[in-house]
């Protein structure tokens, strides 16, 4: 009786965990391993890959495994530069998102409950519209014939500065990145701020702290775990983004994502594309690791 029950439990456990496990091993783990392997292969003559073993003894060309793709990356500084630029854009986007999101998150956290839910919903709602549409909207707003462009150039002309094009510029890329990722910053910040005990601020005020001191000495340190998780949620996707620079950026605004995309859908150098993807993965992992570590030490500080 007990034994059959144990068996039944084992069976239940197997039935619910095996199918997703199997699916993800085949369609997530295996493809990731294949990507690692691909980065150590030779590119094929007409794109794709060269076979591991030569088709005949007299076959010309390169076969087998190599670290060429990685060496190629370091052979030209331009690739390192693109990586650095991607980090800079990701950092800038994260910072702007933080500055925009923080006051809003504070306000939402301090509002009454029903208003709070509505305000959160209003942050998520635009996020639910199609990703490409949100980028496209900025094509309209920043376009050369748009009201904003006319306004900016009129102002610049008044100061005797030559007209600028807003679209297809690093500025447009940054605006698009911030727009697409802003909700990722607001939500974790709000979740953190909402848990703060308001009596702490009252106590600080009673002890004579002014508004700035109350923020800098009480609210901000307590919100650091939220700041770090929000930052990771913005930084990581921006690092791999190719659609925003592709649509809003100019020819020079190439980030890691665009470089990877070109290796698979343009020049078809799979090994190099895979090597770039591996390096992006490593970058993402280190960013995720760092933020977790920072967030932990931030909440640890609070405990002591």
């Amino acid at each position, binding site marked *: 009786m007990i034994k059959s029950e144990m068996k039944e439990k084992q069976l239940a456990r197997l039935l619910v965990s095996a199918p997703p496990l199997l699916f993800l091993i085949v369609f997530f783990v295996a493809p990731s391993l*294949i990507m690692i392997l691909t980065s150590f292969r030779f590119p094929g003559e007409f794109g794709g890959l060269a076979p591991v073993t030569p088709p005949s003894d007299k076959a010309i060309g390169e076969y087998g495994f190599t670290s060429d793709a990685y060496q190629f990356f370091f052979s030209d500084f331009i690739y390192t530069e693109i990586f650095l630029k991607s980090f800079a854009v990701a950092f800038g986007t994260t910072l702007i998102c933080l500055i925009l999101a923080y006051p809003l998150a504070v306000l939402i956290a301090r509002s009454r409950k029903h208003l709070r839910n509505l305000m959160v919903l209003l942050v998520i709602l635009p996020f639910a519209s199609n990703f490409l549409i949100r980028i496209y909207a900025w094509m309209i707003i920043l376009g050369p*014939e748009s009201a904003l462009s006319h306004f900016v150039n009129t102002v610049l002309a008044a100061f005797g500065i030559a007209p600028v094009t807003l679209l297809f510029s690093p500025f447009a890329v940054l605006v698009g990145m911030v727009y697409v990722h802003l909700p990722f910053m607001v939500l974790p910040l709000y979740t953190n701020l909402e848990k703060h005990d308001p009596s702490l601020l009252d106590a600080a005020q009673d002890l004579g702290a002014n508004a700035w001191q109350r923020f800098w000495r009480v609210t901000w340190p307590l919100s650091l775990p939220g700041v770090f998780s929000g930052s990771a949620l913005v930084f990581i996707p921006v690092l791999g983004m190719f659609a925003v620079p592709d649509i809003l950026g100019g020819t020079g605004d190439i980030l890691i994502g665009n470089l990877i995309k070109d290796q698979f859908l343009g020049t078809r150098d799979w090994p190099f594309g895979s090597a770039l993807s591996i390096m992006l993965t490593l970058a993402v992992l280190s960013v995720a690791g760092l933020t977790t570590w920072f967030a932990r030490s931030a909440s640890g500080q609070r405990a002591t």
Partner: protein
Amino acid sequence: MKRGNPWLWSAAVLVYAFLYIPLIIVVLYSFNDSRLNAEWVGFTLFWYKALFNNTEMLLAARNSLIIALCASFCATLLGTMSGLAIHRYKLRVLPVLVFTPVAMPEILLGVSILLFFLQVLNFTLGMVSIIIAHTTFCIGFVAIIVRARLQGMDESIFEAARDLGASPWQTFRLVTLPLIMPAVVAGALMSFTLSIDDFVITFFTKGVGEPILPIQIYTMIKVAVTPEVNAISTLLMLLTLVMIIIAARLESNASSEESTKPGKTVK
């Protein structure tokens, strides 16, 4: 409200304006009687008519719908299982595999699945590869929603069912499933919208065959922008909005049902 700080309010209004003005402009210009998205000329439904006469676009919409239905079905099934398994058993590997695809840049998932299909399965890319790729990243979202619901529930219900002699399958079918149903439906709706909106992963796994909606929109944006893009955008926004309202209704119905139950302890 004691701290009705005017600075906070003005900052918040600015952020909301930043979030909504672009979308409002897209919707407005879908009714604009001009080829250029530059100034308002007059009201027209021309772009919607053009859209419904665009057979390529209709085919793309149909394909995307099929993909979203299949992917959300698979993801809901596997995601609900994952959510249950992760909540109930101390598992090490499954949570990592379920949640990593949600957290990592989409391009990595797209690239690896592209390589896998072309190299290992020797399979031409198309609808099937897109469905599988979408399922892979949607499982995580469904699992998160289902697990969150399970975490909020009283474990003693399941114990009671077992004490009363229910088999694990009966406990699942008669107790667990009805209780987590709102989360399952919300997860299904979420994966449907994620799938129908997804551009990056679709872009890598689409191959050269059938037209797919996000790719079609991308091509229109890159090649020749006409307000037809605005029209399809407006319709898609409407679709997503309806889905969200349905999901919110289900969620609030479920929670109000619970709160009216006598003796329910709120945690």
